[in-house]
């Protein structure tokens, strides 16, 4: 029995292989996954999500390329890296400035949807410019 379970959101617009990669990354960040943990086998993921096996293989290959997992032939795929959780100092500082920004946005009359859209738009803009 694997310690980790993948999900799939068909309406998110994020390619399925990337959803799998992101969930492992997030699992590491949140501490749900630790070095030495075994990921489900390709067949287990296929049977639980009704997903193309090539997609799972692609996600695992990407994770291996990024140094997060190690595929041991005949045994399975294991977590090797642990992403350092964000240090308490920067975490508190970033959270504080984000809180301030959200308060400003609400004070200016922006609703939740606009706030989320604005964040997503700035984030994707910076990412396409290679700045984030």
């Amino acid at each position: 029995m694997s310690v980790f379970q993948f999900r799939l959101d068909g309406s998110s617009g994020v390619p399925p292989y990337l959803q799998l990669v992101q969930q492992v990354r997030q699992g590491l960040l949140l501490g749900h996954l630790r070095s030495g943990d075994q990921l489900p086998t390709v067949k287990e993921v296929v049977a639980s999500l009704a997903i193309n096996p090539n997609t799972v293989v692609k996600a695992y290959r990407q994770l291996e390329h990024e140094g997060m997992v190690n595929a041991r032939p005949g045994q399975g795929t294991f977590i090797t890296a642990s992403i350092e959780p964000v240090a308490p100092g920067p975490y508190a500082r970033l959270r504080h400035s984000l809180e301030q920004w959200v308060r400003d946005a609400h004070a200016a009359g922006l609703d939740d949807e606009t706030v989320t859209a604005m964040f997503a738009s700035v984030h994707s803009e910076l990412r396409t410019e290679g700045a984030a």
Partner: protein
Amino acid sequence: MSTALETRDLGMRYGRKWALRGCSLRLPTGSVIALVGPNGAGKTTLLQLITGLLRPTEGTVEVLGRDARTGSAEALAQVGFVAQEHPLYRGMSVADLLRMGRSLNLRWDRPMAERRLADVGIPLTQRAGALSGGQQAQVALALALAKRPALLVLDEPLANLDPIARRDFMRTVMVAVAEDEVTVLLSSHVIADLQAVCDQLVLLKDGSLQLAGAIDDVLAGHRILTGPRTDAEPPVPGLVRATHSDRHTDLLVRTGTDRPEFHPAWRSHPVGLEELILAYLEQPTEIAR
């Protein structure tokens, strides 16, 4: 990577009308191929040419290097086919259908078919006509897979199935891909269901091929450009479709690079599979090539 399916200048004419023409494709083994297009695009014609149910008017079609036009027993044995509405002999029991399959096929893996049916809780004693739509689809699929085909062809397998039955059906198909390395070609109207299951896309419209290739490559080769509204059709190379709202214009363009040369006021975004397919299906055919 070896080739599961290859067509060259494949064409089929009914009377004076070409249902399919000039179709050249090469698809790798082990892939799951989505065949999409509006009604009357030639999807079923293409599937029937591949399964040997039709003989082409012109061109060639090969499945794993074997000419599919001959209708030889060897050529037929390597293709499993589930037709639209997954028809079964309604009066026969599931066990009878399995027995009939054994005598009609060169290869027949009955234990595997029984295991698949047990996995989805279908009793062999049940009459096919008494099964639910989703269960009938599973039986048709188990019969097609019992041939141990190298290529599994599914014509609109998800139509008329409820969401749970759809997921269960695709789960069985995907497990077969993982376990038996079968190549799958499926036609579908349900575009939203394709992204998690397919890795190759073939898009047909009005009997001609609009787009074919690995889905990741196809998506990487297109961008959406958003900018101020322009009434004139912008002279952008590779323009697939322009949509205008009051204030802005969205252009779907075919491009090699991440950021095509265009006015800096235009922003470039990646495109999703569903949006891309719909854009190609909506555009007038002549712009396509």
